């Protein structure tokens, strides 16, 4: 059971990569997990080509699973293009996390990915799968 908090998860939780805010970010969005009230904001800056992610950062608060998965995500997307990231599958991230998750904890693990996709969708018009549309709506309402 303690696999859930295996070393790499705890390491990312305690020493998150890409934690912080990018002032004047090229793309950003924030989202919330309504089940638990956890919030995450994601900031992206692009290289000169306007497509390749130079840096991605996140801020907010959440459980070990959400913080660690978002931290891993920030590392994963660096150097990829916006359209590549818009196609990045949940499974690819979950494989990186590498632990079996219950449906409730899946929502924790995938919040950051959803918010990142919303940020890219808004700035670059990349496709936003229907399952993340709610995050986009929520942002517009608030």
């Amino acid at each position, binding site marked *: *059971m*303690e696999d*859930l*908090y295996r070393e790499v998860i*705890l390491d990312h939780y*305690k020493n998150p990569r890409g934690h912080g805010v990018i002032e004047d970010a090229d793309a950003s969005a924030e989202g919330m997990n309504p*089940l*638990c*009230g*956890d*919030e995450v904001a994601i900031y992206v800056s692009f290289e000169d080509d306007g497509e390749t992610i130079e840096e991605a950062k996140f801020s907010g*608060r*959440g*459980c*070990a*699973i959400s*913080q660690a998965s978002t931290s891993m995500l920030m590392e994963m997307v660096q150097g990829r293009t916006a359209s590549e990231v818009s196609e990045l599958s949940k499974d690819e991230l979950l494989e990186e996390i590498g632990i079996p998750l219950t449906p409730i*904890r899946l929502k*924790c693990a995938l919040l950051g990915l959803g918010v990142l996709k919303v940020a890219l969708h808004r700035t670059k018009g990349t496709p936003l799968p229907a399952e993340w549309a709610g995050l986009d709506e929520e942002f517009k309402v608030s």
Partner: protein
Amino acid sequence: MAVETRAALDARKLRADFPILQQEINGKPLAYLDSAATAQKPRQVLDAMTHFYETSHANVHRGVYTLAERATEAFEGAREKVARFVNAPSSRELIFTRNATEGLNLVAYGYGLASLGPEDLVVVTELEHHSNFVPWQYVAKRTGAGFRMISLTDTGELDLDSLDAIAAEGQVKVVAANLVSNALGTVNPVERLAAWAHEQGAAMVVDAAQAVPHRAVDVQALGCDFLAFSAHKMCGPSGAGAVWGRRELLERMEPFNLGGHMIRKVQFEETTWGDLPHKFEAGTSPIAEAVGFGAAVDYLLEVGLEAIEQYEHDLVAYALERMAAVPGIQMYGPPPERRAGIAAFNMDGIHPHDVAQVLDWEGVAIRAGHHCCQPLMTRLGVAATNRASFYLYTLPDEIDRLTDGLLRARKVFG
């Protein structure tokens, strides 16, 4: 297991009534510490519902055949029991709903929407569950009424000093508060609030979902105008709840749901409403659930409300003392003498989800999240808290296991 309880309640014996508690979770005996979310059900309640389905089930208030009469008698008998349980002057003032939330919506729509205007104020508390917050916020917006919140002290209790300032801002028409906070366990001074509400010419609306299962509640002694609660938090089934309202107010109100059963006469030109309580009970009610609701009342009366209140007081006092010794724990809420059987806390550097996850490994079930109290979470400056909540079947050694689990979480997260 060091706790001494003075109460005439034998939790170990009562647990035999609860089949669900006789199981292991992750190889450990289930320690169910989430009764504030929903209580477990004793065999007596389950049997009453099964018996009803097997012997007496039919739709109520319609058929003239024997079975329909039997069903109606069981349903209305349950209403009598539930009404007496909160000392309602008449069972006609006791409306069956799906849950407390629906009861509060019934009041917000049926009473609030019709009686509020731009000059008026609706007053809620910073401690409200969303069910007694969001409907009033919505109705205030719809009617143009002002929306105010009674703030909290640092111990999570209502700051009644703010009442005068609120009253000076407009005509207070509705005051909505819970009797016991689901998030902190705070027992609110509803009698005082009701007296203040009436001085302002306002109606007092009470969310008693966390109170009715755990202590004797008397709508007349409280002096409130509406009071809502749920069966599922008091050992009854989900899908049934009740709202009591003062008859003169209920009679003045428009119905909330429209349709079958709630009418007197339907014609193309016009429909007239039925009498109380039927005016507010459109469609087929949760019939077997109401029967289970009545059986839950019987069960709690048999155990004794005073014994339950005393027992939970002893449990929470014990829990607060034990938990205070956990390194890096932050406890929320008032001292035991002013709180019900709820312990709310956070662990430094460990998110509530992760605390609850580690406790689950130990078979200990607690709640982690915002508890449908986001305004309170904002006041506390957190996104979420942990909550352990107790009931008549909770054992002191389950609190010991909770404390041990918190120490394990500390070990995992450092």
